[in-house]
């Protein structure tokens, strides 16, 4: 594989450059994601009230964010009344410790887990592995990246960067499928047999949460594969891990969100399973872990507050020209792409300072977001924050300073323009070299013979 996530020191641009070395693979990655974006468009346009749905979803989430304290306590009270056990985790470390404690209390060392970006954010798999717990990810895409020792590169499509031949080889090594068999139907069948054995024998199942309803204390989990349900209903203990922003006020609001989620994610009218867990099954346990991990801080940052409306559909990634051509691992964070580039700096501004710059600010992400988050505007806001904090990438900070200095001196600006035009004409190698990032993968434009000021001065008389 050409992509590995465990190089956190490298900036996005360098990792993207590595991803771009294999041009055929990049083109394939780009086209696959664009195809999913097109499926999303078709699904969205089939609903005439789509824009009403987006606005309503955004407004419901605005209500949630502005009433989060009361909704959280209401949710907790209802969940407790339903017989669930509610835990609160201030950060990733506490979340991981809570999950580990539940496993110890139940004397369990082998568990199944369905897709949960929160547990990825918290590094739960690594933590449990260090404590001798065997975690099997049961979403097919997540299982594939897990067997390969990677993390998901996309929140909805975890192994979107893998080719079927590579998956065939991986399964040959780990699941002993015949060498050279790369048929998706066959490989999925092999994974079904491999994972069924895990579902049938493991006593604790972890899931994420798509929506948590304050009114009823229930959690809703959406999957296509049925892995969350196979895991939880065959286990004695269900641990549902959720960020505190997953709340919605009432069950009827699911009518809005379930119409938006799958259409935005993959172009499906709804996920195959939309499972509503209100009470634990008789004799079994339901734990709900409410995780903050920076969310309450983001709530207080007015410019970035709306990022907490995210329902994790992945539409902003599928449409993003930078994501499609740089791959999810180049973001070095569990949530990649445009929305991840807003969420990651909230957790660690220094570590993720490069991400808000990994965007053209074209606004396509904002246009497809089902809850109308102003994604590209928040990325622009982050850049300003990062300049203020002195954390902007060095090259960009220097060139911006120089541009500001030059633009403040009209005479010098005119001279510099003339000089640049002359240099491009007479000594193009001064610009067309590897030191100039604009020359990478691009031709420089032909220099104009005169500046606009010169042209204007000459033509206004005539």
């Amino acid at each position, binding site marked *: 594989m050409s992509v590995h996530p465990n190089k956190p020191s490298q900036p996005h641009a360098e990792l993207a450059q590595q991803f771009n070395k294999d041009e055929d693979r990049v083109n394939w990655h780009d086209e696959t994601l664009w195809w999913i974006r097109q499926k999303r468009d078709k699904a969205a346009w089939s609903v005439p009230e789509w824009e009403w749905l987006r606005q309503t979803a955004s407004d419901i989430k605005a209500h949630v964010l502005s009433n989060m304290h009361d909704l959280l306590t209401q949710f907790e009270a209802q969940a407790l009344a339903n017989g669930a056990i509610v835990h609160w985790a201030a950060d990733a470390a506490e979340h991981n410790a809570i999950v580990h404690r539940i496993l110890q209390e139940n004397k369990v060392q082998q568990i199944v887990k369905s897709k949960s970006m929160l547990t990825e954010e918290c590094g739960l798999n690594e933590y449990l592995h260090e404590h001798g717990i065997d975690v099997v990810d049961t979403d097919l895409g997540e299982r594939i990246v897990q067997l390969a020792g990677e993390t998901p590169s996309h929140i909805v499509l975890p192994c979107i960067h893998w080719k079927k031949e590579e998956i065939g080889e991986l399964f040959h090594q780990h699941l002993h499928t015949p060498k050279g068999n790369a048929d998706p139907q066959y490989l999925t069948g092999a994974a079904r047999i491999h994972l069924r054995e895990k579902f049938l024998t493991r006593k604790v199942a972890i899931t994420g949460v798509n929506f948590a309803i304050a009114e009823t204390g229930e959690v809703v989990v959406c999957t296509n594969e049925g892995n969350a349900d196979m895991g939880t209903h065959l286990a004695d203990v269900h641990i549902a891990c959720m960020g505190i922003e997953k709340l919605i006020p009432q069950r*009827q609001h699911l009518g809005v969100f379930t119409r938006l989620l799958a259409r935005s994610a993959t172009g499906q009218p709804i996920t195959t399973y939309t499972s509503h867990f209100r009470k634990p099954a008789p004799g079994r346990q339901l734990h709900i872990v409410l995780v903050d991990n920076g969310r309450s801080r983001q709530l*207080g940052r007015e410019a970035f507050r709306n990022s907490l409306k995210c329902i994790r559909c992945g539409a902003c990634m599928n449409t993003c020209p930078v994501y499609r051509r740089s791959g999810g691992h180049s973001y070095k964070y569990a949530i990649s792409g445009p929305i991840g580039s807003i969420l990651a700096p909230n957790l660690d501004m220094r570590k993720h300072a490069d991400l808000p710059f990994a965007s053209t600010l074209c606004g396509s992400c904002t246009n497809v977001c089902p809850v109308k988050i102003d994604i590209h505007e928040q990325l622009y806001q982050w850049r300003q924050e990062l300049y203020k904090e002195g954390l902007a990438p060095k090259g960009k900070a220097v060139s911006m300073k120089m541009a500001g200095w030059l633009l403040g001196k009209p005479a010098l600006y005119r001279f510099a323009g003339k000089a640049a035009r002359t240099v491009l004409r007479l000594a193009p190698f001064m610009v067309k070299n590897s030191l100039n990032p604009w020359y990478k993968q691009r031709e420089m434009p032909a220099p104009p013979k005169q500046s606009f000021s010169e042209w204007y001065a000459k033509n206004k008389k005539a």
Partner: protein
Amino acid sequence: MSSRSKILAQVKANQPASVALPGLELPAHAAQWDALQKFVETLSGIGGRVIRILPGEDVTATLLHAFDANSNILNVSATVQGFQALPDAAFEEPALLQNVDIALMDAAFGVAENGAVWVTEAQYKLRALPFICQHLAVLLPQQELVAHMHNAYQKVQAIGQYDFGVFIAGPSKTADIEQSLVLGAHGPKTMTVFLLP
């Protein structure tokens, strides 16, 4: 201070002034469908199978005809009699259901816009059943169809409280390997809805 108090205090300090909830009345230009036609079209489009039972038709005979003769059918439906019953031991050990070929159950209603049916644990008795079976068969009266998810949740409220409830739209599926759609990921490989007159 406990994490609970800490989180709640910080949320309270940082949340903005309260914004009112929006209304949920659909706009005038919202989609309208012939519910029956749309349901059949949508469920078929996502890999499900729809079989319409005509008035006076023998449901059991049609059921048997729809599946392989060697299949074992576990029936928790109140609409038809016969077939295998849910074994008591499965409540303690749901993994015992791993060899069920076909699970047959009643659905409360279906949703036209996405082909989903609503089933609750109270109706089908054991949570794991519609997921662990190899094939899922659902009986649904054709007048019990709603247009979209807004109506669906009104109906859910009207039916009453549940411990576990699920919308199921077609067979379990995945496209994780190069976006090639494969039906039958971890749950049923097929889903058949029998529409009752």
